[in-house]
């Protein structure tokens, strides 16, 4: 199988307008990935599938990542920084432009029996601009997984044939896998025999407002 540099070079040769970048991975597995630009994401995906030397014809997994802090490894999303790490849940809301949502695709080639190649697509920010091109027209297996990402992370996939909630019910507000999501009826809101539980509840008093904010920021509500 070609190295990631060769794949990256060939994408740039075939599609000069495409933005492609290799994301390094410092973890022990060291598996690097390709960060694609949003605009040419669909064209690059089609190229990866149809190129006779790559033939990445199988998308085994799609998942989402919520980058809450502006501590992105490297990418197109410019981080304003200086905000510092947001430790308290819910504080990351409101500052648009910090962080982004990401969809990660794992591709294999059934024809050449190799893989994986990992693709990443990042939204502009976490609140208003959360649109990405859907890769379901390229790999049919992305359909339910992109629906799941829409359901839990709130990424809106343009070109998806049937973008509805998958795991949560219709009418549910908020995106539970976002890192600043707070559960509405937290179990600690009930009195229990443990005395310290109501004390731990107190910093979460702003729970209702945060959920209100999330609801209004939802582009589809």
């Amino acid at each position: 199988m070609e190295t990631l540099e060769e794949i990256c070079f060939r994408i740039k040769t075939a599609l000069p307008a495409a933005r492609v970048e290799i994301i390094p991975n410092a973890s022990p597995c060291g598996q690097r990935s390709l960060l694609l630009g949003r605009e040419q994401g669909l064209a690059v995906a089609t190229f990866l599938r149809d190129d006779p030397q790559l033939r990445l014809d199988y998308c085994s997994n799609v998942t989402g990542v919520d980058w809450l802090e502006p501590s992105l490894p490297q990418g197109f999303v410019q981080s304003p920084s200086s905000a510092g790490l947001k430790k308290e849940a819910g504080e990351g809301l409101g500052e648009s432009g910090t962080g982004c949502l990401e969809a990660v695709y794992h591709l294999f080639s059934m024809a050449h029996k190799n893989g994986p190649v990992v693709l990443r697509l990042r939204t502009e920010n976490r609140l208003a601009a959360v649109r990405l091109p859907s890769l379901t027209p390229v790999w049919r297996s992305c359909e339910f997984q992109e629906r799941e990402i829409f359901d839990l992370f709130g990424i809106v996939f343009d070109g998806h044939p049937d973008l509805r909630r998958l795991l949560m019910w219709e009418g549910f507000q908020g995106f539970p896998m976002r890192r600043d999501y707070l559960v509405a009826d937290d179990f600690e809101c009930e009195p229990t025999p443990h005395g310290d539980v109501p004390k731990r509840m107190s910093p979460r008093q702003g729970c209702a407002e945060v959920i209100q904010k999330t609801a209004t920021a939802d582009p589809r509500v």
Partner: protein
Amino acid sequence: MEVTDQELKIDLQKQGVLMTSLNELYNWGRKNSVWPLQFGLACCAIEMIAASMARYDLARFGAEVFRPSPRQADLMIVAGTVTKKMAPQVVRLYNQMAEPKYVIAMGACAISGGPFKQGYNVLKGIDRYLPVDVHIPGCPPRPEALLHAFMTLQNKIASQPLTGPARPRHLRAGAPSEFSVPQCGPHGLVPPSNPAVWRPPTAAQAG
């Protein structure tokens, strides 16, 4: 039945005379033909299936006939995690069962939400919406635990009087046999619990 009657009955049984009451006969028949509703929600259902198979042999208790229709079932074994999306359907299935009907909440998830209690999508115990007769802890409970729950339920059925104020729900004309089905709201189930069935525990301060 009076104590003296019990002793007289045992004496007579030693002589080969069987005495019983209508109440006992009725409950004896009921407790040995409890047909469960055939549905499972998560991994506890695998243990429920194991309990119905040859090694644990739920048929010994007359409960091997898992019915695929709520109209033919007497017992709902809530075997597994009840998600908030699934809870209205579970309550609706219970409402469709004919009286007398019983509920066993099987496993940590069904009795309290279990490991998912702090999550966003799991109901924190089916007893918030349904009158549960037997709770089984465990994750998942072994088939022996389910058999024990069955025997507990059988004892409960056998001890139910047919008359008087303590008679079971299906013999009281005014008692409800249906419970309100919760709706999926914007953040969770509405209402979060049925106050006729469940009330939040009051905080007991250790003295």
